[in-house]
């Protein structure tokens, strides 16, 4: 009896609660809906399709014909010399670029945080390399290192040193690519780290000074610990940017000379849009995604433990 009378009452109560809940939240859902729909169609769906494609053999020339091949793409991938080289280049580039960017960014941050006249102007000026279109940066660097009349070669020539088209030199192209990454992103690190430094109260430095701590000690025990959170964000962001970056390398060297600067992103692009091997290309993309997810989780975990 009790349950029989209780049920409709409970149901009605749930109904009212649900209506009240909707009244409070429907607009919230409605406002966020356009962005969710657009992202769902243009980012989420293609990503899921890309993951699915990784298990199929499919050609860009006849996208309708797709054969399920299980893990065959991945098996082929890990045995391919091209993939191994590209993976190694990607990891090396990311490690080199991010660590050099961080150290140089830290240096610039220390200078820009000082209260000298004009610091604000220099803060803004330094950001120019970061907002520049990548194609423009690439054109600048290609011009500077151009054989014959490129300024770098004019200077080297007048010193009696070897001149050549440096982007075409197997041993030089890779360092040049690292240099471009560094040149572009150092200001971003500098501004973010500078802001973190400026939020440290001066009183802490004064107290340390009174305790006899030198500049290096103050930097080590006051500055570094308090910029560690922003440092983590910057490093994770840039590892992801650099690992996934396509434009800088594709536009400057195209992966050459002789595959010396081939990274995963350019390798995928070529596999998909020049070899038309869609499934194979997708399996590389999935591998990249997995590596980045593992990296982010491990890094965040390590940082949380500290």
């Amino acid at each position: 009896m009790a349950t029989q009378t209780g049920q409709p009452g409970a149901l009605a109560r749930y109904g009212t609660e649900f209506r009240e809940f909707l009244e409070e939240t429907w607009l919230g859902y409605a406002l966020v809906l356009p962005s969710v729909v657009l992202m769902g169609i243009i980012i989420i769906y293609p990503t899921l399709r890309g993951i699915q494609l990784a298990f199929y053999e499919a050609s860009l020339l006849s996208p309708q014909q797709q054969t399920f091949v299980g893990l065959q793409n991945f098996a082929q991938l890990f045995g391919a010399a091209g993939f191994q080289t590209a993976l190694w280049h990607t990891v090396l580039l990311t490690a080199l670029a991010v660590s050099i960017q961080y150290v140089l960014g830290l240096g610039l941050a220390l200078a820009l945080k000082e209260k000298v006249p004009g610091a604000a102007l220099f803060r803004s000026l330094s950001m120019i390399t970061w907002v520049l279109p990548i194609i423009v940066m690439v054109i600048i660097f290609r011009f500077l290192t151009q054989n014959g009349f490129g300024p770098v070669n004019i200077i080297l020539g007048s010193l009696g040193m070897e001149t050549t088209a440096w982007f075409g030199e197997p041993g030089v192209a890779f360092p040049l690519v690292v240099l471009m990454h560094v040149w572009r992103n150092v200001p971003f690190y500098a501004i973010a780290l500078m802001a973190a430094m400026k939020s440290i109260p001066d009183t802490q430095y004064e107290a340390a000074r009174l305790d006899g701590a030198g500049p290096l000690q103050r930097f080590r025990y006051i500055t570094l610990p308090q910029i560690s959170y922003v440092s983590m964000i910057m490093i994770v962001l840039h590892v992801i940017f650099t690992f996934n970056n396509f434009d800088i390398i594709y536009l400057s060297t195209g992966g050459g000379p002789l595959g010396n600067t081939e990274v995963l992103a350019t390798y995928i692009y070529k596999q998909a849009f020049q070899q038309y091997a869609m499934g194979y290309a997708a399996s590389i993309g999935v591998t990249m995604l997995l590596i980045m997810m593992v990296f982010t989780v491990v890094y965040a975990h390590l940082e949380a433990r500290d």
Partner: protein
Amino acid sequence: MATETNQQTTQATDRSFADRLDAWLAEDMSPRRALAVYAVIGLYMTFLLLPVFYMVLVTFTSAEFLYSSQLVPALSDFTLDNYVTVMSTGLFQQYFINSAIVATTTTAITLVVGVLAAYSLSRFEYPGRSGLLFTFLGTQMLPRVLILIPFFLMMFTIGLIDSLLGIIVAHSVLGIPLGTWLLKGYFDDIPKSLDEAAKMDGCSHLDILGRIIVPMSLPGIAVAGFYTFILSWNDYLFVSILSQTAATRTLPFGLQLFQSQNAVAWELLLTAATLTMVPVIVLFALVQRWVVEGLASGGMKGA
């Protein structure tokens, strides 16, 4: 005697120079420290800005100078020929207009969609909200080349290949997650007590958004708009697969106009590159204060 007085005067002027420098500087800044700071900043600025400055300099000189293996142009080398040639090239004009249409439309769409989404994420509580926030951020991690393949097939199916609309849609969606995230950071900074007061006065949510939130976060909107604009203006990857003809080419892709497989018209390529960066630099000059501030607070706070 004479040398002594001389020395004294030099010392005196030195001291007065140091004094003046000292007076000009903040209280806790010694002149020596200031000079060291300027030296470091100077090194960095040379490294960062000299390449850009040199490119711009060369575009104002004749092609003969560029190919002459000289580093410093003489006064007679300066000319506006390169700009005249590039700006009167029909295809360059076309690409520039395409870029402008794509970037401004993308920015407008992203801002409208982003402001609505950011308001929802900042002011409403509902199940799935934190999941959504995480998804917005997570999309930034996806390799774009992975999205590219199915995205290309999809655009092919719905016939948006080789249309400016297809490019605009792609860029907008790429901009929405970061734009929304930034805007939410700025909206969160506006005290909720203002909303409550407005609600008491009978304002609806849309009134609050239009009359309080948006006007009070104009710097944030400027920054989000700027990020979206450069994302679209600078994009090469998506344009390279979506654009098939000159009618839909934007500048980063269109700069190939001045280079072929074996020959590059450097004087024209550099000039076109300079013109490509001008809108970005001008916009940056307008919003730089807020961009730098936002990177410092709003941008990081959310993350």
